């Protein structure tokens, strides 16, 4: 790999003529394998990525350039324009022990195909008549370096895998998309089991009756709530001011949600898909409590904007690839689980209510108007037992009630690749409408 510090000196010299004094060079090499079963038959591909990115800024202008192949040390660069940008300064990196999984070899072709074929077999066994429309496994590794003229210098390695499964029964279609640090850890039986449950709910369920009360939300539904809260957790980049309807609720009650709501972002989560010692700008990552007992404690932010500050989380700037402008975003953002509580125990204690397993759309969450609705599937529950299959029901209410009515969390923390890796355990919530009047 090119020596990034040497490259930075050359690039910085070539950009100085354009008045750009602050310069950052990012280099990445990667290798990935993709296997897919779908309408194109069987596909196996091998990709070698070799890219670079340069950010540079002067007093009143800036630029971001990126490309594949060798970094052009002396340009040509386009003329900078627009506002300036700030690069972060160096911060001490706390000790980082590289997980062994980071050095695990990529899946070879037959291993990757075997995982997909196992999914195909499990689906045929678990639900005759169902079809696997698309299955894609990606397994990759990369080495990145970032250096800047303010003294940041970092080198890190990442390793990650994703599995996308899309299955259908008649006209009903469901998608499971999961991520992890090692493709070999994907469990086809468990994943396909979730697909079968969801397809059966869609096949057998009815919309159910209008109701109001307690609901138990499984992780795929609960994680949508966390996704909706992201603008509040992204600090200045979130764009949600305190003047919003939801912001007023926070001001009035001093909290976003109940005492059971604890939200954490952890850039070093053990076996996490995005775990690394530093973020995309070379700023050290760490674990940050964003919401503690429902109270907002910190937001995610740029390392540069928070140089010298003690509050707020840094080390959370993400680069989806070398082609993308670094942006503040979560790495592993999750609602903390309660290790003592199983989802089965929460269900057993539910005397009357609903257990929703399936988010049938992404939902609509309006922070400004303090309202939400999402289409869900699952079961009506009496005395801890499912009594009726529900599909296409509208779960709605005020967002403040959704978070304030959180009564318990389970231990089944599950992550989903959304805007970052977002995770939630099952959540028990009171005071929500099922098939109530639309608030939108």
């Amino acid at each position, binding site marked *: 790999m090119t020596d990034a510090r040497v490259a930075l000196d050359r690039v910085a010299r070539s950009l100085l003529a354009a008045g750009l004094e602050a310069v950052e060079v990012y280099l990445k090499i990667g290798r990935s394998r993709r296997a897919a079963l779908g309408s194109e038959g069987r596909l196996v591909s*091998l990709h070698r990525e070799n890219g670079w990115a340069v950010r540079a800024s002067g007093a009143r202008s800036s*630029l*971001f350039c990126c*490309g594949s192949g060798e970094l052009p040390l002396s340009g040509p660069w386009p003329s900078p324009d627009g506002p300036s940008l700030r690069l972060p300064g160096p911060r001490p990196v706390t000790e980082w022990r590289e997980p062994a999984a980071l050095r695990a070899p990529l899946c070879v072709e037959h291993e990757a195909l075997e995982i997909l074929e196992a999914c195909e077999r499990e689906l045929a066994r678990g639900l005759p008549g169902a079809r696997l429309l698309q299955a894609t496994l990606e397994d990759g590794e990369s080495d990145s370096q970032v250096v800047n003229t303010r003294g940041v210098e970092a080198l890190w390695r990442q390793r990650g895998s994703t599995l996308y499964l899309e299955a259908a029964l008649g006209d009903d279609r469901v998608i499971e998309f999961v991520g992890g640090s090692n493709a070999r850890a994907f469990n086809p039986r468990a994943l396909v089991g979730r697909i079968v449950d969801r397809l059966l709910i869609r096949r057998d369920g009815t919309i159910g009756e209008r109701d109001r009360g307690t609901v138990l939300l499984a992780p795929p539904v609960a994680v949508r709530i966390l996704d909706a809260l992201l603008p509040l957790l992204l600090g200045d980049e979130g764009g949600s001011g305190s003047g919003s309807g939801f912001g007023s609720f926070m001001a009035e009650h001093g909290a976003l949600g109940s005492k059971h709501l604890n939200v954490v972002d952890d850039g070093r989560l053990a076996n996490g898909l995005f775990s690394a010692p530093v973020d995309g700008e070379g700023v050290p990552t760490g674990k940050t409590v964003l919401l503690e007992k429902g109270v907002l404690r910190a937001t995610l932010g740029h390392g540069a904007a928070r140089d010298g500050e003690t509050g707020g989380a840094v080390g959370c700037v993400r680069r989806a690839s070398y082609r993308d402008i670094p942006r503040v975003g979560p790495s592993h953002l999750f609602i903390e689980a309660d290790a003592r509580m199983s989802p089965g125990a929460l269900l057993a204690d539910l005397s009357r209510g609903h257990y929703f397993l399936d988010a049938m759309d992404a939902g609509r969450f309006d922070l400004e108007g303090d309202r939400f609705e999402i289409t869900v599937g699952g079961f009506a529950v009496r005395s801890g037992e499912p009594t009726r299959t529900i599909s296409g029901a509208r779960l709605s209410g005020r967002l403040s009630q959704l978070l304030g009515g959180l009564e318990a969390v389970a231990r089944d923390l599950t992550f989903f690749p959304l805007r970052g890796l977002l995770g939630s355990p099952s959540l028990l919530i009171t005071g929500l409408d099922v098939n109530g009047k639309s608030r*939108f």
Partner: protein
Amino acid sequence: MWFSSADAAAIGRCLAQVADQATDIVDLFLERRYELEMRSEETGPGVVARRDEGFAIRLVRDGHTHLVARDGFEAGALESALREVARVIPSSAYSVPELATLGPPEIPAWDEFLDFQTRVRQAVRERHAAFDFRVRVAHHRRRVQLVGRRLMPEPETEAFFSLACSTPWGGFGTLTPELDDDCVAAVAKALVGRFRARGASVIGGFAGPIVLAPAATAVLLHEAVAHALETDTLVLSGRPEAAVGVALGSDLLDVLDSPGDMPPALRRETDDEGLPVLRRWLLRRGCVSQVLADRFHAGLSPHLLPGAARRASRHLPPVPRSTHLELVPGDHDFADLLEGASGIYFSEISRGRLDPLSGELVVEFPHGRRFRAGRLGDWVGRCVLRGKASQVLSAVEAIGDESEFAGAGWCAKAGHRLPVWATCAHLRLSGLEIGQ
């Protein structure tokens, strides 16, 4: 050879060594793209430039596709990629030429970028409106070349601009071959539409006639005709060739895909598999005439014609997609279309999707205007049209007499982000319900 001074015939011979069965498909796809984006955000960077180049080798054998993709053109890269795709270590080394691009890309002129936002602001003021908005302009250039065992078509190039505008009442995006006065006027009209419709009433349920402007017609046909007739969609529910002859819509509809009939900066002679593109009739008098196929799917049936393959990137395999949809114009002028009972006129569709299994079509309109007896009236807010694609296409009762090159946008089906284009006229439909 555009990408290299190397001997293309030598590359063809190497590919022929890899494809040792008569039915094998093997090709080398060379790609080079450059994007320059001018942003108007509050924080930097103010300018974004992306240059991307590399190649991919594909081998299709017995329904299996092996693809090896590389960034850049490092020495020895082609040889090692050939070994990887063939998955053999030959007893004698391939005699493979090196690939190299011919120098760095030229950086496009800035002038038209710099004053585009100013021109749009001026055009908005001329429409007696003033509000805050941002415009992000990007120039996209792409050159691709394909080398096969026997094929070596000329390189293809495309160059266009993409615009992404944001207002407090929603965004607007489009693609355009040029930042000319027509483009400025179209963007200003779309932005002012959002401004005028900002407090407009929301429709609970409306079942009267609707008229779509050419840009909205383009999105509707892209979802309901093009996506419905792509072989990777059709294969999910049966044999793609079985669609031929099926009545998909009103007998007024004649729709074709014609990548060769676009403005010069976008025009294609060959597809992304190096095969000549066709003026492909998709619908004749509302019945399916042909479907969109690439080489892989065309191999499944002798009734399917390849030539509609597109690659979003060298890292992805080719897929069958439309490039430029054309709707044959009808004989109604715009005033005719607005005659009669009260209806709603939609100038744009902000989003559309087709469920490939159920055929359920959903299109979202950012706003519209009521019309009655030939005159446009009050604005209406965001609304949605839902229905089976065939039901919606059967509701077409008149087509405008003037076509426009309009309605271009990004298609992102199955993760393949591709620019798509259309030449369409106004469309009048009845018997459909518009709701929320």
